[in-house]
């Protein structure tokens, strides 16, 4: 892939911004039925629906998606990661405008980091997106969470748009933000976003201790975050596009840690993040159906962890980590005939990690991805196939490293339109995730014998999607059955003192995802909205045949997850109610329900929100109020991390 390097001098970086859908089957369906009509299962939420889910960050916004379980350590600054269909957070790629947000150290993206102020829409694709004109990384994970930012769409008459707002409420939250969109000329526009977020993060919870519930308060969980983000968009005369984005995020957080019985509420641990990235994209379409996308990114992420109470010689822990990523991608697609498109994409990523730890290995990983993909449509039948080649080479300053890997990963997705509203679909995807730097090199628990973790996914499903002329405007129903198998699952274990990482687990899962969405006119003034999602996940631990754990449900994987969202709109007013349910979860490999402390009980959460969109002296304003955990449920998503009870939030926004 030397030519890519040559073609991609770093500062000359170019790339794609908007994955324009060209083939008919990947078009977003009717504006009325907001359903992503993709080959494989896909779900989407747009900015105006965030309030329906009382969402503050990306993790909140996708709560209503089927097959998604969110691991939440609680509070404003608490880590939130997403696991799709029980495969674990490392198997979901998070894309920002088509370019992956990668964490080579931990392999998991904290979705609480993404404030929604600048998000236009979020989509989740099982398998991979249907659009094959994408960077190779879009093909390289078991599922893709694609976040799209707001892009300026301004006219010469009003060449600017400035929105300013503030959100505040429980946990001492104060979150002012501003967004400035500006059109400079026919070809050039920019957008700048900035926000600060401050919260003391305090909340009350109860700790269970043998039949007694002891009230405690979460302290030292304060959050101070600033983010500034800017992007320039250029459109050429030939409709080629270029964009360049720069983003800086600073967070200063208190880490309350796990609640441990008999010791004072944890306090004093701190975490600082300084994350910088810049990414650029260039896109050009030629008349003959040829399209080029070039993307690049540089990311520099610094993490500082401090624990003031540690029984070492220093008396504290003070760890600094810095990871860098250099990324370039080129993708060429070509429409051979009206119903056949092929593409080839090649990505190069170089990831490094340094830390102030003794005997640190200073790893550098070079990943080269090449993917060949095809979208073929004939009559009622659509077929997508792709083969991804992944080539991973790693070097370390001291010690040994993983052997060079060269892996081929196939995907096959099919779609058949049975009759007008009914479509059948199926997909198979074989993919792996490489061991992360943490798993390989975290101080002395080095295990460079780790193999990649392979996931095989099979899915069959049906969609029913109909726009109706009567009071009910549309009705859409999706149902999918799936089977997953994860081989060589990477697990932290105590096998070698005091902690090591090994490829020891084998996991199989069967599941079902169901979704229903409809909107209906209620009289002449009101409109009713309804969305119901249900997921069944039976994820089995098959690591030790014959052992008591054989076929046990995996930790943190609820058998049943359900979400109900109802709402009423009336000319600028909206009132919404969201109810989610999670069945019990286990927090270790036992499936023991003989004592209610041996598992995490089921929980049910309700959120209520209201929004008003109107005008103040001709200026558009938006006011919203949200109550989260309406009935004050006491629950834990992660063991020893009690979640907050009832909380509220209000927001106000004005646009000039």
């Amino acid at each position, binding site marked *: 892939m030397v030519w890519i390097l040559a073609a991609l001098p770093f500062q000359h970086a170019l790339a794609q911004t908007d994955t324009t859908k060209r083939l008919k089957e990947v078009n977003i369906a009717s504006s009325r039925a907001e359903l992503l009509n993709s080959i494989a299962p896909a779900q989407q939420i747009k900015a105006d629906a965030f309030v329906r889910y009382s969402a503050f960050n990306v993790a909140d916004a996708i709560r209503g998606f089927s097959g998604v379980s969110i691991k939440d350590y609680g509070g404003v600054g608490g880590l939130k990661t997403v696991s799709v269909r029980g495969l674990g957070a490392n198997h979901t790629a998070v894309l920002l405008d088509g370019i992956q947000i990668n964490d080579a150290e931990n392999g998991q993206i904290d979705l609480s980091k993404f404030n929604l102020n600048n998000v236009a829409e979020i989509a989740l694709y099982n398998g991979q997106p249907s659009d094959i004109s994408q960077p190779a990384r879009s093909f390289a994970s078991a599922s893709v969470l694609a976040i799209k930012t707001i892009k300026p769409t301004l006219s010469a008459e009003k060449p600017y748009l400035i929105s300013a707002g503030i959100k505040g409420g429980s946990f001492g939250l104060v979150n002012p933000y501003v967004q400035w969109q500006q059109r400079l000329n026919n070809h050039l526009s920019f957008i700048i976003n900035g926000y600060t977020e401050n919260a003391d993060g305090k909340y009350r919870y109860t700790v269970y*201790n*043998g*039949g*007694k519930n002891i009230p405690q308060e979460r302290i030292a969980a304060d959050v101070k975050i600033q983010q500034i983000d800017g992007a320039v968009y250029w459109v050429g005369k030939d409709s080629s596009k270029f964009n360049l984005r720069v983003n800086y995020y600073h967070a200063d957080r208190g880490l309350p*840690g*796990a*609640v*441990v*019985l*008999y*010791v004072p509420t944890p306090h004093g641990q701190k975490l600082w993040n300084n994350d910088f990235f810049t990414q650029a994209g260039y896109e050009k379409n030629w008349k003959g159906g040829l399209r080029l996308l070039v993307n690049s990114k540089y990311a520099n992420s610094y993490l500082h962890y401090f624990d003031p109470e*540690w*029984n*070492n*010689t220093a008396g504290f822990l003070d760890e600094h980590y810095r990871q860098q990523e250099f990324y370039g991608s080129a993708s060429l697609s070509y429409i051979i005939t009206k119903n056949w498109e092929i593409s080839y994409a090649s990505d190069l990523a170089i990831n490094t990690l340094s830390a102030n730890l*003794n*005997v640190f290995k200073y790893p550098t990983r070079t990943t080269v991805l090449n993917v060949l993909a095809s979208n073929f449509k004939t009559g009622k039948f659509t077929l997508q196939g792709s083969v991804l080649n992944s080539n991973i080479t790693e070097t370390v300053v*001291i*010690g040994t490293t993983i052997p060079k890997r060269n892996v081929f990963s196939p995907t096959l997705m099919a779609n058949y339109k049975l009759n007008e509203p009914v479509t059948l679909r199926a997909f198979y995807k074989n993919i792996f995730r490489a061991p992360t730097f943490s798993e390989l090199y975290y*101080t*002395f628990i*080095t295990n460079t014998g780790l193999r990649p973790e392979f996931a095989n996914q099979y899915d069959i499903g049906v969609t029913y999607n109909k726009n109706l002329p009567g009071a009910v405007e549309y009705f859409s129903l999706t149902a999918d059955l799936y089977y997953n198998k994860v081989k060589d699952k990477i697990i932290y*274990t*105590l*096998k*070698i*003192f*005091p902690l090591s990482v090994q490829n*020891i687990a084998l996991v199989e899962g069967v599941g079902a995802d169901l979704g229903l969405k409809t909107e209906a006119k209620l009289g002449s003034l009101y409109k009713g909205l309804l969305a119901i999602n249900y997921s069944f996940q039976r994820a089995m631990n098959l*690591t*030790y045949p014959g*052992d*008591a*754990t054989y076929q*046990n449900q995996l*930790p943190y994987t609820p058998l049943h997850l359900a979400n109900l969202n109802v709402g009423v709109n009336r000319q600028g007013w909206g009132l919404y109610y969201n109810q989610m349910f999670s069945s019990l979860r286990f*927090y*270790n*490999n*036992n499936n*023991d329900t*003989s*004592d209610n*402390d*041996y598992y995490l009980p089921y929980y049910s959460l309700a959120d209520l929100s209201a929004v008003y969109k109107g005008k103040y002296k001709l200026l558009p304003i938006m006011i919203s109020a949200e109550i989260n955990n309406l009935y004050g449920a006491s629950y834990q998503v992660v*063991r*020893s991390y009690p979640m907050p009870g009832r909380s509220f939030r209000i927001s106000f926004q004005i646009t000039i």
Partner: protein
Amino acid sequence: MKQFKLKYLLITLSLASILTSCSKNDPDPTPPIPGDARAGIYILNQGNINQNNSTLTYFDYSTQTTTADKYMVANSTKLGDTGNDLGVYGAKMYIVVNNSNLVSITNAHTAKLTKQLTINQPRYVKFYKNYALVSSYSGTVSVVDTTSLTITKTINVGRNPEQMTVANGKLYVANSGGLDYPDYDKTVSVIDLNTLTETKKITVTVNPISITSDRYNNVYVLSMGNYGGDDKHPAVGSGITVINANTDEVRSQSNVSFGYGIPIIAQGDFVYYPTADNKIAMYNAKTQTLERANFITDGTVITSPFALAFDPINGAMFITDAKDYSSNGTIYAFNVAGQKQSSLTTGINPGSIAFVNK
């Protein structure tokens, strides 16, 4: 699920004792004390760190029943986070709860709490005369008066002390320095148990954790090595150091690979510890040579050996298996010939065993 069939166990064990007592190395020359009888066996399960799921499994020999968490039943409160060591001394039981900074002292029969002592990151407990000696990760050994149940003295030792053993009237403390990777401690503190002062530090293989002593006044120290590998910290592997408790000098040092947890016990003429391939090495204390690569002779496989205890009254060797370290473990009873007699399900990470008499 599985229960101890005590009757059969005793029969087979006594048979096995008769059969093996002819061998040249007597596993235990002390005859069972007449009238002494075990009421039951306690297994302290660590649970997982930060999960507050430490439990105390109890098996009652007369009723043949298992209580999954006797502490919880007796006190209606949880043990806390990461119960690391357990000891029965007289009528009392001492439970060392590492991450909850507690030593919980209970009635040995009922597990009913008598007193809780707060000690920073306590690790292990040993007894001598009227003292309970508790090592703490803060670099100390606390002396608890077993009558008043108060801490009467705190002795400074090396960094992050782990296990202790009593030999020749002295307490030997393994100073691991385990939180100072890769500049671990490599000493064993010698504490005079009459004056309760540290008299000496003996240099052993780096990162000592486990320690025991035999009847010949040999102190065995298992060290984990330094996991090093760069120029500043060249790698030192794991190994055993044998100290002569009469002279307090190192008798021998050798390299051995251990598994996790590395319990070590001495019983009669033998010293037992798990090796990296999950076998229970049997070392001859008299000849200072390896007696058998695996104590277990009937092919029983222990996935993750986690605790060892020998009951001289019943002549039984108990070995726990922590399996995947994230689900309930198993305790096995073996006869002295290394044949499995019975087994029982424990809690998660069964790391410590104690016997209680009737």
